[in-house]
């Protein structure tokens, strides 16, 4: 109360208030003049809302599935977030405080995600949470983050149609992943006809909706078919036959999880060879992580549209891959989402330092415009809508499970979770 009173011009100005104010002003000037690692503002100043911040530590939450069907996908994100936190700590932490993390298991079960999110926010009073992977888990925790005002850093590329002040979306929304990729395949491969495939849930459906509108209205192409399969579906022979009959220039596949393995194997068994010039497949759902399960020989030659590939050639990425392998083993594979998860703690650190406070409201206000020049994917910047500006890259799958990056957009693409004309 006292603090807020002295902030208004002359309102409730007392001698003590005046003194506190001038001391604070003096401290602020002092802070500006010393390098960031030496800053250590008092806890009462950087934490006015009762978060888990002490003079030496700040506690954050990590909320992913480490058991259940999603564990395989989410493991990389957990590893990346822990790596980022450890690196930040080694550099002196955030506002002079070492980051401690509490890890909770969402158990691939959306109500459990909600329960654990509530526990992290209400009981542990964490200063922010890095987590969630599926849209379903994000939807489950979203009202809790908004109700109790905390920040979630969400790493997965997703369908858009959402823009919460309490979430920072470090992955791409749908248009960022789709439009430039279709433009590329239209321009470079002369593709006119497309066949859209997807697993049957919100992300593939929304993505294909955007893809269809772009193909028909902007590229002047045609969609020869659009099919969806239940999650976990493993028999793709009938759709593969339809593809062979209709001969689309490009198969656009958004198949997720275990279904991928069956799909690509059956494609190859049916003689649709992606390494040849006659058959082109583009996907926005296969990263290095998925290739581990599919097998490099089964998907060789496919084009994947992502913002990050492990093979990306820049100094930031070199250092990141090296550090990741040192921490989690030589065999580690880093996919698009893992990199996006790695950005979470760094973006949070930058926002906290810009705000000079751990308070959620101040961090949220500081978030738009945050830039990272050290991101493995290159330069990133947070848009006013809490999504990242990012480039799109096309990778061609290699036999060894990595991708050759054969194209990247010149400019960063603006995130647009509610694309006009694409809904």
């Amino acid at each position, binding site marked *: 109360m006292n603090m807020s009173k002295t902030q208004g011009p002359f309102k409730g100005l007392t001698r003590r208030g005046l003194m506190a104010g001038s001391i604070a002003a003096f401290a602020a000037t002092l802070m500006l003049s010393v390098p960031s690692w030496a800053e250590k503002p008092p806890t009462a100043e950087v934490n006015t809302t009762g978060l888990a911040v002490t003079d030496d530590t700040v506690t954050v939450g990590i909320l992913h599935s*480490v*058991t259940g069907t999603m564990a395989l996908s989410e493991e990389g994100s957990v590893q990346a977030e822990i790596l980022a936190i450890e690196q930040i700590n080694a550099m002196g932490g955030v506002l002079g405080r070492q980051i401690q993390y509490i*890890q*909770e*298991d969402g*158990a691939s*079960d*959306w*109500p*459990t995600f*909600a*329960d*654990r999110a*509530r*526990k992290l926010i*209400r*009981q542990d009073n964490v200063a922010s949470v890095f987590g969630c992977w*599926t*849209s*379903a888990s994000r*939807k*489950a925790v*979203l*009202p*809790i983050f908004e*109700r109790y005002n905390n920040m979630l850093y969400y790493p997965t590329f997703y*369908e858009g*149609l959402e823009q919460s002040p309490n979430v920072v979306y470090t992955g791409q929304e749908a248009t960022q992943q789709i439009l430039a990729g279709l433009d590329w395949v239209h321009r470079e491969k002369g593709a006119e006809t497309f066949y859209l495939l997807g697993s*049957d*849930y*919100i992300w593939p*459906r*929304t993505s294909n*909706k955007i893809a269809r509108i772009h193909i028909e209205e902007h590229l002047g192409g045609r969609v020869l078919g659009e099919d969806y399969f*239940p*999650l976990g579906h493993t028999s793709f022979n009938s759709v593969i036959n339809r593809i062979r009959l209709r001969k689309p220039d490009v198969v656009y596949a958004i198949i997720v999880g275990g279904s991928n393995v069956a799909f690509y194997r059956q494609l190859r068994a049916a003689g649709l060879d992606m390494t040849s010039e006659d058959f082109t497949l583009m996907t926005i759902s296969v990263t290095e992580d998925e290739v581990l399960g599919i097998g490099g020989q089964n998907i060789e030659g496919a084009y994947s549209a992502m913002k990050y590939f492990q093979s990306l050639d820049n100094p930031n990425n070199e250092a990141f891959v090296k550090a990741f392998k040192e921490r989690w083993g030589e065999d580690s594979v880093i996919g698009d989402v893992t990199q996006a998860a790695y950005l979470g703690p760094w973006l949070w650190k930058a926002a906290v330092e810009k705000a000079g406070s751990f308070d959620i409201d101040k961090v949220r206000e500081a978030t738009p415009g945050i830039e990272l020049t050290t991101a493995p994917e290159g330069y990133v910047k947070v848009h006013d809508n809490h999504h990242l500006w990012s480039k799109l890259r096309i990778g061609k799958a290699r036999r060894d499970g990595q991708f050759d990056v054969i194209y990247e957009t010149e400019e960063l693409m603006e995130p647009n979770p*509610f694309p006009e004309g694409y*809904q």
Partner: protein
Amino acid sequence: MPFNTFKEYMSRQDVLAFAVLALLLLVVFPLSLDILRLNQVGKFLSFAFVAVGLVLCWGYGGILSLGQGVFYGLGGYAMAMYLKLEASSPENTSIQSTPGIPDFMDWNRITELPWFWVPFNSLTVALIAIVVVPAVFAYLIGFAMFKRRVSGVYFAIITQSIAAIMTILIIGQQGLTGGVNGITDLRTLKGWEINTDFASYVFYFVCVAMLFVCLFIAQFIRMSKVGKILIAMRGQEDRVRFSGYDIANFKIFVFCVGAAFAGIGGAMFTLQEGFMSPSFVGIVPSIEMVIFCAVGGRLSLPGAVYGALLVNIAKTTFGEAFPQLWLFAMGLIFIGVVLALPNGVAGVYNTFFARPVDALMARVLGRDKTRNTLTVPEQGVTS
């Protein structure tokens, strides 16, 4: 009046057990737990409704249903549909292509509220549906199965497949049901915020009150003539049939009651968690619900409540302490319970504590001639 005296309705042991449970839920928990934990206990109690229903169906009627999650889900979805419609007012959803319908419908290019959603604009209809929809669905299943004398393990398998079908249906029809995401972002009930601490307290006590209503109904059924017939049926179905009873009707009745209880439980979950998910409808959660009942003791009504509480508390505690190992710990506990305590927690009480407590009560209150908890036959429980 089916009971001549109160003692015929509740023995002294029953009164004691209910009183201890009430003390625990209404006094001890609210005073000792913060609102976060109390809200968790409230959610665990929503599963106790299913377990109480299973005591009647399985413990007494011998009908093992591995599909109670379906009824829990139907109740939960009925509540969630009403709350979602309230949250989807045209003002709140003005950015959508079609304002005024739930957001997930808009994403799936649905432009009109589906017919079966329309009645859920009314709270009264929703509240009735919470009980009636599961009960009617149970009646249809029960009618189809029991009239053809499908029972035992076949019935269990069929209920299990219904649970699987229901999950596939809900996930597949995402434009109508919210799909795998479930129905999320529920905010108000008649304009009253449901995500506040105060609302959590209110819902907790509503949940406990409803649970006791169900417990008293279950106790009534258990001690009435129907309860006796159920026990007889469980032991020797043919003899009961030859005595002139229509077995199927009794089975359908008790199965419907179990389903209605489960529906109320689901609705209580939706209110306390603020969303409903298809992850409660499938096979795994349905089997978990049977485990709650087994751990508590399938012949004991208060035992079912303790079973649901114990298993869920263990799940949360282990889950928070050892994120990667908790499943193994849970597995060990279940194996341990099944091997060492065939009649669950209530069995332990009946074996070791019931007699001394009885003796103590006899000394304080005088002799009690109706000791029903002890006279329930333990043998002949199959399936």
